[in-house]
């Protein structure tokens, strides 16, 4: 396990620079009693700084495992992770690993403190930041997720609604000032309004230069938020690169227990070129207006 680096002083600026995350020949097995189950098979990927990538794949395809390996929470059985070109053990690797923010599936289940402020402050305090830096980070993170400190900081996390709890958990990760954010099924089991809120927050973060890796089944939101996508199935990267439709891209998603985004499907059924389907519904409505 990596020890969190103790920063020399107050982290400066609104957000630290992005970082590139890559892996080479990454393989991983889970021990399941008497047998070993291979979760990833020689995964090769590269995420450039500040880009937003959707990690698509059916349940059990290895999305969560991949995110946890890249963040150093699991050790690869084969292959390696490269952060800004550095391998584990090299000078500066641990510090970069710390700058990958990982939001687990159902992260509200990890809330534990008596107040929202203390919960969000947990990460920054573990990093040994000065109290002033911690306060600043907490307030910034709470504001970024739409839970302003003056109204929410003193409340008990479990007094919040489900959607608010999810955003609070996101704030706990953002407070550590990540350069890139990994989200594992962030929209799962939220009501439509909470999903919209979360999507708007992620759009805002992406606009601020934060890199995003979004592991999800929600292809509509993935298409709206991400420039490119990786299709993972049975631990193998089936395809990686920009979204492509019209030339077998839909079939690729269907073949791996996914579906094309709603807008793409709409474009196809209207007899338009699916490759030109806009990522968002608003743009689609504009294009269709008489």
């Amino acid at each position, binding site marked *: 396990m990596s020890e969190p680096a103790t920063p020399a002083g107050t982290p400066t600026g609104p957000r630290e620079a992005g970082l590139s995350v890559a892996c080479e020949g990454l393989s991983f097995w889970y021990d399941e009693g008497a047998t070993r189950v291979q979760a990833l098979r020689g995964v090769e990927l590269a995420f450039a700084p500040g880009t937003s990538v959707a990690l698509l794949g059916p349940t059990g395809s290895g999305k969560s495992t991949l995110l946890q390996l890249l963040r150093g*929470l699991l050790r690869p059985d084969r292959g390696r992770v490269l952060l800004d070109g550095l391998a584990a053990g090299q000078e500066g690797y641990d510090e970069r690993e710390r700058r990958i923010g990982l939001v687990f599936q159902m992260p509200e*289940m*990890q809330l534990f403190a008596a107040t929202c402020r203390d919960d969000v402050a*947990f990460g*920054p305090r573990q990093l040994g930041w000065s109290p002033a830096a911690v306060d600043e980070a907490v307030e910034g993170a709470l504001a970024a997720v739409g839970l302003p400190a003056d109204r929410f900081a003193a409340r008990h996390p*479990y007094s919040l609604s489900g959607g608010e709890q999810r955003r609070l958990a996101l704030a706990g990760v953002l407070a550590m000032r990540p350069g890139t954010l990994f989200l594992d099924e962030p929209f799962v089991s939220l009501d439509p309004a909470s999903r919209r809120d979360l999507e708007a927050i992620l759009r805002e973060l992406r606009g601020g230069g934060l890199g995003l890796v979004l592991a999800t089944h929600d292809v509509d939101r993935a298409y709206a938020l991400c420039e490119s996508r990786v299709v993972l199935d049975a631990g193998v990267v089936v395809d990686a690169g920009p979204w492509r439709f019209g030339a077998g891209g839909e079939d690729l998603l269907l073949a791996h227990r996914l579906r094309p985004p709603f807008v793409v499907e709409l474009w196809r059924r209207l007899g338009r070129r699916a490759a030109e389907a806009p990522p968002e519904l608003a743009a689609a409505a504009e294009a269709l207006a008489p």
Partner: protein
Amino acid sequence: MRMAVAQYYPRPSPIHRLDPRCKVVAVTAIVVGLFLRSSFAALAVYGVAAAAGLLVSGVPLGWIARGLRPVLWLLVLTFVVQLLFAPGSAFATLGPLHLSTHGLAVAGYLSLRLIVLIVVSLLLTLTTPPIALTDALAWLGRPLRRLRVPTEELALMVTIALRFIPTLLQEIDTIMKAQRARGASFNRGGPLRRARALVPVLVPLFILSFRRADELALAMEARCYQPGAPRTRLHPLRAHARDALLLVLVAGVVVLAEVL
């Protein structure tokens, strides 16, 4: 997360297919027999029986060795204590310590008996799913109901507890990873600091567990669970000829050990 909680090792072996009640009776008989008769000959009989059982069960030896590991220190301790402190004429003396052939025999006997004992018990838990084991114990405990011991309820409690151990381990693992991603570390500092580091794990774990217990109770009520009501089973325990054969074989082994 590796833990020998659910030791069950699935295999399509004849031993796995035996009625769990008969297996419990057989293992009990062997364990009692082991203590009834202290002779190397009896031990050899039980040892051969245990080895035969192992062979038929198809459980790899490495897996058995893993089961023995937790009691290794007990084995070593038994051996050393008996070797040094058993009475008898010494064949070697190291200062105040006397090594006698009698001591060596006693130490060897007790250690071997312990190994046979553990292997026989492991054979039961490795070849029987925990839930089948609970069912068997509930059935065998039925006479206790006369004394108003709620055996069915106890069995259900044990079954539910066993059912949720893997779930809890999985949850602990996930929560620990999530908190590590937030900078927590669980292996730094003294005991107090380590205990404090567990708060971010234990609080969510308790909240999740209580919530799940509530939901489980409601779900059971919705399916008309009534404490103490007679239960029917999806897989009724049924004894076959092979189970009778097991009991006869084990009885033979015990008698042989007694006679020798």
